[in-house]
């Protein structure tokens, strides 16, 4: 029989190694921590050199403020930091780091050297320590700043070492980390080299679009448009058109007060804003910067600091959703529609330290010319975005309530005539098969119906082919328009408008659905009963701890009422309001629109085409059906000539 192990205090080195397990997972996490330190030190240039995928060596050199000899000795101890002085500071953290754990953790699992010099010293200080042992201190001649050299990571923790991936994989993660910070700090020059070869260089770009170009590539960057939501919590950034998307979220970069985060609230807001513009499981490219009062966001959630907790996640959701939706509503996203007028986006020329949207008091930080305001902070003021009003996504003043009014107004005009869009199957007036090839004038549509001639109105209709596609011609291109997708989008917009106008049709359940609720759910339901009624529910108390659902929104006729109610309640708990309905609504509206739209095989008449085009020009998102499929495919004259081997 084994003797019972006795309880004893662990040695400091073991404690450090255990702590390191939380902070230092792989070479990329070392680089993340050291990059954050460099940026917090106000560096304008950071050089990241890696060898052997980071296993052999990681060296980070910055030109930040550096440290004195005494500070350097303290900095490598656990829980030593310049970023916090008291507990209250923890409530309003504006720096990337604050735990004072990183250097001690890294030191304990590597051969570690720190060299640093601040402006007051003539010589720098070098501290060398292997595996957390007491450091050897020496003087060194160096420029102002800090250099950290981490060799043989995990040499003393074989268990951790064997979980590291191949060199290329580790390098990929490192590159991703560097890329994130390059995007978040466009005015900091960051370079990354591996085994002496430069892999990436992010020069000091005062224009964020330049940095987008480097990170997302020219095609994506050129098509991105700016977003802005100037009312706190403030949001700015760039998003891609729905035509450019990925099958994962790796193109989504979200920053909260300059910190890269993977926040489900922000991601969901982006996804929901795109809604039906993207096919299922497709995600846009986006770089989104959210500014929240530091006191209203808790960054002390996870050692890696990838997660934050908002005091009011609902307001963050709405801010991001509103910003993205507004930008999407303003852009036709038609192929080539943005040519030559790509949105220059926010003016970032005034950003001194390159940090975007760090939460603080933004009032009067600086004007659009870069004049520093009373606070004099080196931070981006989202209010500067007002200077780009009219250039792209943000053409409207952003008074509260404007957004809904604006969308509603636009759609009201667009959809007033929609009910008249009558299709009468069976009459074949298509002349596409006539072979004369001549484009023809579409029947006149009343001026008030047509409004300004948009993309569709400018096309010359040639005819219908394959009983589904409308062939059109413009100056230098041929366009194929999917009649089903086009009508589906119109129908979808009508249905959605009903919802936004709060004219929710209700559907009585044949038999009430009795739902047994917990006390918490019951309290929440009673508290939000009027909200549920607005959403189209009739719910009444039926007995002790039981409520009966008697009516549901007619649009949700196919949804299981009890499951929907529970989802809404859970959602209300999580976000302070219901978003599930939006999720369901998009899918249901898409399905309903699909079923009630003209199908392939319908011989469309010229009058119908004219009205269809007029209506398409009046609505937002007229380039995609609600499932995200394109409505129009364009073949340029150049492409056609190329296919015929003509120059």
């Amino acid at each position, binding site marked *: 029989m084994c003797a019972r192990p006795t309880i004893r205090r662990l040695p400091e080195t073991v404690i450090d190694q255990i702590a390191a397990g939380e902070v230092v997972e792989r070479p990329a996490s070392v680089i993340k921590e050291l990059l954050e330190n460099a940026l917090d030190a106000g560096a304008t240039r950071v050089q990241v050199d890696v060898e052997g995928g980071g296993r052999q060596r990681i060296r980070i050199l910055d030109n930040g403020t550096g440290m004195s000899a005494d500070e350097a000795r303290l900095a490598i101890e656990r829980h030593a930091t310049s970023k916090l002085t008291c507990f209250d500071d923890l409530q309003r953290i504006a720096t990337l780091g604050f735990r004072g754990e990183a250097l001690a953790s890294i030191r304990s699992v590597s051969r570690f050297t720190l060299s640093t010099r601040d402006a007051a010293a003539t010589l720098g200080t070098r501290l060398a320590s292997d595996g957390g042992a007491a450091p050897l201190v020496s003087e060194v001649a160096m420029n102002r700043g800090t250099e950290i050299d981490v060799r043989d990571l995990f040499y003393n923790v074989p268990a951790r070492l064997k979980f590291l991936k191949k060199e290329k994989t580790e390098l990929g993660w490192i590159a991703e980390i560097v890329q994130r910070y390059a995007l978040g700090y466009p005015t900091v020059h960051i370079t990354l080299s591996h085994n002496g070869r430069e892999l990436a260089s992010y020069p000091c770009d005062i224009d964020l679009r330049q940095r987008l170009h480097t990170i997302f590539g020219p095609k994506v960057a050129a098509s991105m448009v700016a977003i802005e939501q100037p009312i706190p919590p403030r949001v700015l950034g760039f998003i891609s058109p729905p035509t450019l998307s990925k099958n994962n979220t790796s193109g989504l970069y979200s920053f909260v007060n300059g910190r890269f985060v993977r926040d489900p609230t922000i991601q969901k807001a982006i996804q929901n804003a795109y809604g039906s513009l993207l096919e299922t499981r497709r995600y846009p490219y986006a770089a989104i910067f959210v500014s929240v009062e530091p006191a209203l966001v808790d960054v002390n959630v996870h050692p890696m600091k990838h997660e934050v907790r908002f005091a009011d996640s609902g307001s963050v959701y709405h801010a991001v959703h509103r910003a993205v939706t507004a930008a999407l509503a303003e852009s036709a996203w038609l192929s080539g529609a943005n040519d030559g007028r790509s949105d220059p986006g926010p003016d970032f020329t005034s950003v001194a330290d390159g940090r975007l949207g760090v939460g603080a008091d933004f009032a009067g930080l600086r004007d659009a010319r870069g004049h520093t305001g009373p606070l004099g902070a080196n931070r981006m003021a989202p209010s500067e975005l007002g200077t780009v009003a009219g250039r792209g996504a943000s053409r409207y003043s952003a008074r509260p309530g404007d957004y809904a009014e604006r969308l509603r107004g636009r759609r009201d005009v667009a959809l007033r005539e929609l009910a008249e869009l009558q299709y009468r199957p069976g009459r074949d007036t298509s002349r596409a098969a006539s072979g004369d090839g001549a484009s023809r004038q579409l029947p006149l549509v009343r001026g008030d119906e047509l409004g300004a001639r948009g993309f569709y109105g400018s096309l010359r209709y040639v005819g219908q082919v394959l009983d589904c596609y409308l062939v059109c011609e413009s100056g230098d291109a041929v366009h194929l328009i999917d009649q089903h997708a086009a009508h589906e989008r119109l129908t979808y917009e009508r249905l959605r408008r009903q919802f936004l106008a709060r004219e929710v049709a209700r*559907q*009585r*359940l*044949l*038999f*009430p659905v*009795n739902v047994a609720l917990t006390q918490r759910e019951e309290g929440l339901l009673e508290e939000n009963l009027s909200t549920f009624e607005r959403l189209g529910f009739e719910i*009444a108390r039926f007995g002790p701890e039981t409520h009966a659902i*008697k009516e*549901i929104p007619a649009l949700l006729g196919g949804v299981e009422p009890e499951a929907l109610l529970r989802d809404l309640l859970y959602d209300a708990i999580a976000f302070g309001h219901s978003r599930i309905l939006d999720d369901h609504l998009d899918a249901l509206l898409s399905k309903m629109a699909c079923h009630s739209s003209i199908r392939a095989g319908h011989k469309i008449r010229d009058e119908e085409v004219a009205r269809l085009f007029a209506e398409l020009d009046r609505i937002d998102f007229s380039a995609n059906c609600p499932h995200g499929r394109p409505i129009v495919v364009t073949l340029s004259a150049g492409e056609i000539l190329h296919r015929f081997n003509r120059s």
Partner: protein
Amino acid sequence: MRDHRPPPTDEAELLRRVAAIAGRTVAELAASVGVVPPENLSGHKGFLGDLLEACLGASAGSRDEPDFTELGIELKTLPIDARGRPRESTYVCRVVHDARDQQQWPQSRVWRKLARVLWIPVDGEPRLPLASRRIGCGLLWRLEGELEALVRADWEQHQELIRHGQIDAIRARDGRYLQVRPKAANSAARLESVDRHGVRIETLPRGYYLRTAFTRLVVERYHTL
């Protein structure tokens, strides 16, 4: 029923009573008016109707006028199957066999009976014990528009034959939504009537019934499962 409620004073009160019984079981309702429900409806065909009349305060009983006399509202139960569809046709009123009857649609008994109807869905799945069957969400309904036109077209077709003294020629399959069927305990029952020449004849008593095709339209238009 022992505890028949007094008639409702207005539609709002009637609707409150309807809302209060929605979701309850037959056993619960029966207990509230002091009766014990039978095991099944065999031999107790009118039990559900009587029970609902007692709970809601219908006053007409078997008189030939709307169940809620003061409000001009007829009460109709709608047995519903597992798929959410009405299980059986709905009796409207008896057929007047007098061929000399020249009544028009607005004065007809069918119109008067169907002008305002309170439909009460009831779980009609026969496998379910009667006591545990649930009462659904009631619907106060008005016969109008497209649905009225459908019923009226059938009624006029039937009346045409009755006026021509051809009531025996009306088959149960005639009429898309409103049918005429014998309504008697057995085929030996006879009703004295008058043919178009004023000659007394004897014929089978008949009634107007709404087909399930019609009540299904009502259910689908106003309810979801």
